[in-house]
C-alpha cells in the first residue's frame, strides 16, 4: 500500500522569501488536484515531490522513507511530467521512449512491450517512427505522458499538463488521468478548475506558497451551499457591483448582465440562490485568503 506524507514542507531559494511554506498532507491512492493561481508554488512543490529539489525545511516521506535521504526509492516508482519539458528532435517516439526506459532501468522485452502498449495508449502508432522534431505540441505532450507511464509508476506527478492542449485533447487527457488513478497516487497541478472537476478525489488549494485548504470535492461544494447567488444587473451598474461583491461569473442577457455572486447573504432583493460549482469554491478560498492577507 503506497503512502505519501508531507510534513511542514517549506522551500526557500534565498532564505528571505518562501516559495512553499509549511505544507502538510497525507495521501493514499487517488487523484490529488492541486489548484492555485500562477505563482502559488505548485511547481516548486511538484519539483520537490519529483526529487528534483530538496525541501529547505520539513520532510517528504514515501512509504516510510524520507525522499531527501533515499530519493532512488521513490524514483523507481515515480512518473513525472514536468510543465515545460523537451524532447530530442532527431529521435522518433519509440527511440525516445527506449532511451527514457533505459534511463529508468527498464530493459529488454519488458521495455519493448511496455513501449508498444504506451504508444497505442497515447495513440501515436502511426506517427511513432517519425522524428519528434515534426510533432505538434499535443503530440509531444502525449510522448511526455507515455514516458511518465513507462515504469508503471505508483506516484504519477503531472504539472500543468493541459497547457497547450486544445479543448478536445484536454478532456481526453483528464479522462486518461482519471482511468490511470486506480491503485496509484496521481498528483495533478493546474490553475484551471475544470481540469480537475471530474478527476480529482481530493483537492488542495494553494496560494502564495501556502496550502489554503485540502478537502474532497463534495465537502468543498457543501461548504458553498447557500453562498452562491444569481441576479440581474443593468449594464450601467456592473462596475459598481464588481466593487462590492465577489463575482464568479457574468453572462450578458438582453436586459443587462446575469451576475453570479458569492456572498454569505443574498446580495439583492431579486437574487436567486444557485447551485455552487468548484469554480465558486476555489474563487471563494482565493478571495478570502487574499482579504486576510
Amino acid at each position, binding site marked *: 500500500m503506497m503512502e505519501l506524507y508531507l510534513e511542514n514542507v517549506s522551500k526557500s531559494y534565498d532564505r528571505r522569501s518562501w516559495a512553499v511554506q509549511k505544507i502538510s498532507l497525507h495521501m493514499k491512492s487517488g487523484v490529488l488536484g492541486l489548484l492555485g493561481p500562477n505563482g502559488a508554488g505548485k511547481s516548486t512543490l511538484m519539483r520537490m515531490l519529483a526529487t528534483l529539489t530538496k525541501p529547505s525545511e520539513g520532510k517528504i516521506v514515501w512509504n516510510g522513507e524520507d525522499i531527501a535521504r533515499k530519493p532512488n526509492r521513490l*524514483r523507481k516508482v515515480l512518473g513525472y511530467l514536468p510543465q515545460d*519539458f523537451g524532447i530530442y*528532435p532527431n529521435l522518433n517516439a519509440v527511440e525516445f521512449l527506449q532511451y527514457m526506459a533505459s534511463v529508468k*532501468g527498464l530493459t529488454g522485452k519488458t521495455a519493448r512491450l511496455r513501449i508498444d502498449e504506451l504508444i497505442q495508449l497515447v495513440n501515436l502508432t*502511426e506517427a511513432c517512427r517519425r522524428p519528434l522534431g*515534426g510533432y*505538434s505540441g499535443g503530440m509531444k505532450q502525449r510522448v511526455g505522458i507515455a514516458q511518465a507511464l513507462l515504469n508503471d509508476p505508483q506516484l504519477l506527478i503531472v504539472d500543468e499538463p493541459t497547457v497547450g492542449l486544445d479543448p478536445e485533447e484536454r478532456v481526453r487527457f483528464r479522462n486518461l488521468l482519471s*482511468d490511470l488513478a486506480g491503485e496509484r497516487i496521481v498528483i495533478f497541478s493546474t490553475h484551471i478548475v475544470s481540469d480537475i472537476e471530474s478527476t480529482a478525489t481530493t483537492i488542495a488549494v494553494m496560494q502564495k506558497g501556502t496550502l489554503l485548504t485540502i478537502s474532497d470535492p463534495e465537502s468543498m461544494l457543501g461548504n458553498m451551499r447557500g453562498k452562491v447567488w444569481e441576479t440581474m444587473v443593468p449594464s450601467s451598474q456592473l462596475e459598481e457591483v464588481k466593487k462590492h461583491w465577489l463575482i464568479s461569473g457574468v453572462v450578458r442577457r438582453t436586459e443587462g448582465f446575469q451576475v453570479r455572486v458569492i456572498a454569505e447573504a443574498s446580495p439583492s432583493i431579486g437574487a436567486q440562490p444557485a447551485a455552487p460549482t468548484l469554480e465558486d469554491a476555489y474563487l471563494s478560498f482565493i478571495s478570502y485568503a487574499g482579504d486576510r492577507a
Partner: protein
Amino acid sequence: MMASIYQIAKADFLERIRRRGFLLTMFLTILCSYIFSPPRDGKYVTLVFDRYVGLYNSAWMGTSVAVSFSVFFSLIGFYFISKAVDVDLKARTGQIIAASPVSKSTYVLGKYFSNLSILCVIVAITMLSALVMQLVRGEDLTVDLWALASPFLFMTLPLVALISAIAIWFEIIPKLQGTLGNAVYFVFWILTVFASMKPVHLGNFVTFTDPFGRAIPMASIAAALKEQFPGYNGEFSQGLTFLDEKAQSFIWQGVDWSWPMIMGRVAWIAASIVLAWIASLFFHRFREKETRHAANLKNRKTVVMTGPQAAFDADFTLTPSSLTPLKPKAGRAPFLPLLRSELKLMLSGRGMWLWGAAALMLSCYLLPLDAVKRFAWPLAWLWPLAIWSAMGSRERLFRTEELLFSSPGRLSRQLHATWFAGVLLAVLIGSGLAVRLIAEGELTMLAVWAIGAIFVPTLALACGVWSGSGKMFEIIYLSIWYIGPLNGLPVLNFMDVSDGRLIYIYSGLVLIFYAAAILGRTKRLNE
C-alpha cells in the same frame, strides 16, 4: 529606424551583460590584461622586438596590451558574442519579433550594435586594466591618456566592430550555426592571423588583410628601436615568448596617428556595418527554423498529423487498465542498455557524418603509419567534435533535464553512460592506429593513445556540464588540437605517442575533469 535599432541594441545588451557569465568574462579580461603585461624580470613576454621590450609607459602598455588582446580576443570574442539572435530563440521572443513590423535590417543592425557595445565594454575594461598595470609595474608613472587609449580606439575598436558583424553572419547563415560554424571561424581566424603578418596596402588608407591594425604600431616601434639600438635585427615576436635573459628596454612614445591612418581604421568600422546590413538580407525573421524543419520533414517523409486521426484518443484501442502491470525491480538497473541508448542518441540524425567517420576509421587502418599519426588520426579525433561538444549539455539544450533527473540513479548512471559512450566513439574511430600499435608491440604508445581517447570526451563532458553549451569545449579543444597535435607543441600534443610522460599528465587531467563533471552535475541537481 535609428530609435528602433537603439532599443533593440539596448535590450539585447542589457539582457546579456546582466548574465552571470559576463562577470566571469570581466574577471578573465582583467586576468588577461595582467598576463599581457608581464613584470620586467618575468620569464616571459607577450610582445618582444628581437631582445628588446619597450619601457612600460602609457604608449607601450596601451599598444602591447591592445595588440595581444586583439589577436587573442578576435577568437574568444567571437564565441562569446555569437548568440545575439539565439537569445531571442531561447527566450522564445523570436515569434513575437517576427510578427512585429520591425524590418530585418533594423533588427540585425540592432543586434550588431549590441554585439559591438558588449565588446566595447570589454575593451574599455582592458584599457583601464592596462592603465592600472602601468602604475603597478611603475617603470614610468606619467599617464598619457591619448597614448594609452589610441591603440584601443584605432586598433581594437575596428576589430571588435568587424567581429560583431562576422558573428551576426555566423548566426544567420544556417550552415554556419553550431559546431561547423565554430570550426570554420577557427580556421578563418588562423588564416587571418597569418595573413595580417604581411598586410596588403590599399594606398595609405587601408591595410587590407590586417583587421588587427598591427602593422601600424609595429612599423613605428621598429623605427624607434632602430634609432636607439642600431643593432636591432628587425625581428619581432608576438604571443607568449619565453626568455632566457632579461629583455633590454627602450623608449617608445607611441604612434603618431595621422588622418589617413585613422581613416584607414575607421574604414573597417564602416565595412563592418555594411557587412552586418548585408547579413540582414539573409535573415529569415525566425521563419528560418520552420523552413529548415519543413525541409527535414520533406526529406524524412514526415508529415505533422492533422485532422481527426491526430485527435487524442480517436480509435482508442487500449485503456490504461489494460496496460501490463510492472513490478519495480530491486537492485541496480543494468548499465549496458543505457550505454547503448546514449550511443544511439549521440549518433541520431547523423547519417552523412557516419560515412565520414567510417572513412576516417578505415584510413587509420590502411594508410602508412606516419601519415596516420600526422594526419588521419588527428582528423579522426576532430571529426566527432559536434558529438562530443553536446556531452553534458544536451539535457539542458533540449530541456530534458527534469525528465532525466527524476529517474533513478540520475547522477551516476546517466553521466557515466554519456562519458563511456563518448570514449567508445573515440576508441572506435581511432581504432586503426591502436590495432597497429598492438601488432607492433608498442605498449607505451598504445597507452598514450588510450589516455588520449579518454581525455577528449572527459574534457568535453566537464566543459558541457559546467558551461551548459558545447561552445566552451569547441574553443578549448580546437585550440589544443591546433597547437598540439597539428603543430606539435610539446605537452599539448596529446597525440604524440612517442612521449610516455603524457600518460601521467593526461591521466591526471582526466581525473580532474571527470571529478569536475560530477561536481558540476551535482551542483546542477542541487540548484
